[in-house]
């Protein structure tokens, strides 16, 4: 699988100087060309995240389609005062991905397929990885306690509920709840430091 003609490589995210907010305002008014541009700048990031959570490539494609159509449908609801366009978009992507793995449709398949399907994508992923931000997030994740980190990553990348995470880690539900919150506070502070 190679890059598509006319499609730029993945945009760095958060993308300085490539704010999608003005484009979303055009999309909200039905501008299909603007929507195509938004797609080109975000689809690889959406697909990367969705695939990480959902695992199955075919289902990840479906979820990516759902997300991008949700962007089209709900562009008028994007409020630039509440956060960046990319954060808005990736929030939708994550929710859709999690909804998919919880629907039961994916649950049965993802374990069996995960090991098989991922390989050929990783070559491409190598090429387009947004190294800088990913590295920084990883470094900040390393600054959490192990329980905080496990709680946050199992929930976010694994698509598990906090109750399921408690089961996986063998700790009380209340403990997981507070570790998720504390972990995110620490992550927020670390990322905000600009280090």
């Amino acid at each position, binding site marked *: 699988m190679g890059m598509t003609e006319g499609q730029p490589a993945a945009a760095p995210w958060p993308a300085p100087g490539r704010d999608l907010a003005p484009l979303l305002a055009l999309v909200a008014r039905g501008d299909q060309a603007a929507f195509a541009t938004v797609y080109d700048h975000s689809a690889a990031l959406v697909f*990367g995240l969705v695939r990480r959570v959902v695992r199955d490539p075919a289902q990840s494609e479906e979820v990516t389609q759902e997300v991008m159509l949700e962007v089209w449908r709900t562009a008028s*609801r994007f409020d630039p005062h509440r*956060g960046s366009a990319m954060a808005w978009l990736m929030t939708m992507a994550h929710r859709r991905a999690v909804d998919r793995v919880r629907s039961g449709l994916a649950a049965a398949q993802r374990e069996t397929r995960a090991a098989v399907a991922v390989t050929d994508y990783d070559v491409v992923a190598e090429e387009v990885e947004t190294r800088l931000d990913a590295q920084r997030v990883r470094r900040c994740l390393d600054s959490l306690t192990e329980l905080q980190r496990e709680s946050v990553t199992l929930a976010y990348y694994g698509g598990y509920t906090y109750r399921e995470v408690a089961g996986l880690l063998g700790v009380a539900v209340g403990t997981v709840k507070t570790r998720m919150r504390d972990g995110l506070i620490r992550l927020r502070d670390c990322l905000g430091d600009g280090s």
Partner: protein
Amino acid sequence: MRIRREVPHTLAGAYVLDALTEPDRVRFERHLAGCEACRQEAASLREAAGRLAAVPAVPPPPHVREQVLTEAARTRQQPPLTADALAGPGRRAIRWRAPRMAVAIAGGCILVALVLGGLFIHTQRSLSAEQAHNRAIATILNAPDATIMSAKAMTSGSATVVMSHRDHALVLTTAMLPALPAGQRYQVWLMGTRRTRPAGMLPVPHRGMTAPVVVSGVAPGDMVGLTVESASGSTVPSSAPVLMLVLPF
């Protein structure tokens, strides 16, 4: 509406990680609606959680792009939210319209709809089945504890429910949900503390409205959900609900 259990502040982390079950999430969003400090904290944690999305980007195959652009060209967009908007970013808004208010009046409106709806129900059911169906509806509408509520779909359109606790049953109608391609229908679910149970298929809409569906066996803590399924129905939801409605218990 009674909150079933206290929603502690500490759920903010699980919430922004999308790690709450659907009932927990709905309850927490209710809690957020009345707590400015919680909203602010959730927003700042949301930004941090959003950064976790910085995983390796992978371009989807080209056909995805074609399908998305084709589909967008024939998909109606949502209008902007106006002044009283309270929805969180990108998430379905569950709005209460006067719960427990003017049941008699609203019930009357629904009855009018039923009479009109009966014109086309006729063609779909035998007479006796239709009479039983209408009797079941009338029983719920006339129950002393009948409560009406409605919710907007995350797509477009809305659902209205008249519910009777006494009868553990409800009547559901919808208006202006997005039309579905042939081979797909909306399916009704009861989603609650017990497992999610299928609760019937919505009939094909007539001028945007669906004829009333009766759902029985409603348990405390249940919510009503609508998903898009194949026309034959599913045993478990295969997609995210387009609408969730919390029932008062």
